[in-house]
């Protein structure tokens, strides 16, 4: 590293552990910000230093830009890695870094602002010839939404312009439902993003969620690291991700990855980012969905098939360097799957399940990777999200990766709290999943009901 020497990791949980690990490999010192609850957490123990920035509530700690900047300056750090969530995609942290001479390990504040506006992002994609889902500009009331809906055809999606994570997003099947749902969507958008702007998109029912990992450097170069398939979602939260996608042919792969690079080049994107697409399975067409301007939760599946450490590349480009590899050197080898192990009760409507982990034994083995901050005796706090671990397996092909995942799940012991492990076991044995016969609403429309009916046993 030329300039970066001490990194403030402004995050918690497994991603903080993940970033600290790469800091060590690169010989960088790490300082992690912690809330009062996280003072004795695994990241706090692994980092060279932990700085307590406030009480447990994220509003008073992990979301406080001024506290994070003060912690960085006070510890002599010269770079901040935001991880994902919290302030990762907030232009105000990236801007504050620039003001105080700190390197923000992420995109430019301007890129965050532009791509954070979903309507602007659609324009960018459309402008470089990438298909966007038929939709509208801003609609200000249910009447305007109804006009737009007539044009694009029902069913439609009402989406928040400032959106993300499914908040403020509502499916409307018929014209008569539009008015009440419109108010609901804009109200939800206002409370989640402080921005109630809504637009309309046609809803594609039989779709897959395909996203392309890209990374850009300061010199205008953009490379892609192939696609991930994140179709298995529940309430717009991804549960299982894999790479490559079983639904993408080599020709389609080339086309979709090239489209992602074109969008990245158009805005001169720097650092790691993900361009999300929806693949219409009935017509074999793909559409631009949105861009995520951060390292993503599911980045390990890409690392497993490409052999490239994405966090390392993030540091390289933030430091003014180029990538360690050229596009031609990026090779797709084998197949990788990731299951998100959450502290939720799949048997009780996926209700969150905080509490003490009395026993934690994660599986090991070549081609088994566990990214986690948990251990026996760890208290899962109700203040933060429910992700406990990401379990990733790799095989020479999809079948091998699935077999290994079944084995790994069966050997993952977590006691004291409920987790999504049994639900993942159910998925990994389901013929629809094995045959690649799924879509973005498969879990909600089909699997959750089957799971409840069969008491977690797919063969009953």
């Amino acid at each position, binding site marked *: 590293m030329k300039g970066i020497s001490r990194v403030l990791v402004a995050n918690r949980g497994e991603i903080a552990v993940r970033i600290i690990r790469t800091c*060590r490999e690169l010989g960088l010192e790490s300082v992690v910000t912690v809330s*009062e609850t996280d003072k004795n957490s695994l990241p706090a123990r692994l980092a*060279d*230093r932990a700085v*307590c*920035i*406030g009480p447990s509530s994220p509003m008073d700690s992990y979301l406080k830009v*001024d506290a994070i900047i*003060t912690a960085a300056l006070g*510890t002599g750090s010269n770079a901040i890695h935001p991880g994902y969530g919290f302030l990762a995609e907030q232009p105000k942290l990236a801007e504050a870094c620039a003001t105080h001479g700190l390197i923000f390990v992420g995109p430019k504040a301007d890129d965050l602002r532009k791509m954070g506006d979903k309507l602007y992002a659609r324009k960018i994609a459309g402008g470089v010839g990438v298909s966007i889902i038929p939709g509208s500009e801003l609609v200000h009331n249910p009447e305007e939404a109804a006009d737009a809906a007539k044009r694009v055809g029902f069913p439609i999606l009402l989406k928040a312009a400032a959106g993300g994570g499914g908040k403020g997003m509502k499916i409307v099947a018929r014209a008569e439902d539009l008015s009440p749902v419109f108010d609901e969507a804009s109200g939800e958008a206002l409370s989640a993003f402080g921005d109630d702007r809504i637009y309309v998109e046609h809803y594609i029912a039989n779709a897959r969620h395909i996203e392309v990992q890209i990374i850009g450097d300061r010199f205008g170069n953009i490379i892609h690291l192939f696609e991930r398939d994140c179709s298995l979602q529940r309430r717009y939260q991804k549960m299982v991700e894999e790479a490559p996608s079983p639904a993408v042919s080599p020709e389609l792969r080339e086309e979709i990855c090239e489209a992602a690079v074109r969008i990245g080049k158009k805005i001169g994107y720097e650092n790691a980012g993900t361009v999300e697409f929806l693949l219409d399975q009935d017509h074999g067409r793909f559409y631009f969905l949105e861009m995520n301007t951060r390292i993503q939760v599911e980045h390990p599946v890409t690392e497993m098939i490409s052999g490239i450490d994405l966090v390392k590349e993030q540091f390289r480009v933030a430091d003014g360097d180029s990538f360690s590899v050229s596009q031609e050197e990026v090779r797709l080898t084998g197949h990788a799957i990731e299951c998100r192990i959450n502290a939720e009760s799949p048997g009780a409507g996926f209700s969150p399940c905080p509490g003490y982990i009395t026993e934690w034994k994660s599986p090991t083995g070549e081609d088994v990777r566990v990214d986690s901050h948990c251990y026996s005796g760890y208290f899962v706090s109700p203040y933060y999200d429910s992700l406990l671990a990401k379990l990733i397996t790799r095989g020479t092909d999809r079948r091998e990766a699935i077999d290994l995942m079944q084995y790994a799940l069966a050997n993952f012991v977590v006691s004291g709290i409920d987790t999504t492990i049994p639900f993942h076991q159910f998925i990994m044995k389901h013929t629809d999943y094995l045959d690649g016969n799924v879509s973005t609403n498969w879990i909600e429309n089909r699997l959750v009901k089957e799971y409840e009916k069969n008491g977690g046993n797919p063969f009953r």
Partner: protein
Amino acid sequence: MDAISQDEVIQILKMVEESSFDELCLEIGDFKLILKKHGGSEPVQRPFQTGEVFAHHEVAQEQPSVPMDVRQTEPERMASVSERDRQEMEPIGEGQEEGYLAIRSPMLGTFYRAPKPGAPPFVEVGRWVSADDSVCIIEVMKLFNTVKANVRGRIAKICAENGQMVEYQQTLFLVEEVDGGGETAKEEIAS
């Protein structure tokens, strides 16, 4: 790692000894040198407690008149840290607070003992304070927050250094409770 040679360290030691300064802190890349004359009265805030190595005792032996403390951050060499060094590395222990009331920082920020540069400090050791007295300022990005004592008693120790960053809930002052002190103080002790 070789930001500075042993000869250079000795030169610096001599310069500091002959100067009117009591303390020197030098950082070059990974290299960190902290010198204190006369044993250093205040406990220093020690960044990077894990993975630190006190690597240059031979230098210290050549210059016994100046206690010193040369550190390099190098996690791999943790094993070579001696027991004495470990004790030195212990942060201000909770044990020191026994019998005292602590005034803790309500937020992370920069600790200032005076209302403005050049002004006399809010409190000194030995000063009696009551709950409503201001004891210091914590600055967070140009925002100055006055901290009240919230306890009654005599300031026994100032635990943070002026101008240094303090963490959320870090102990700033230790206060000796006064007989028949305020109710707040009693409650603190009871809990």
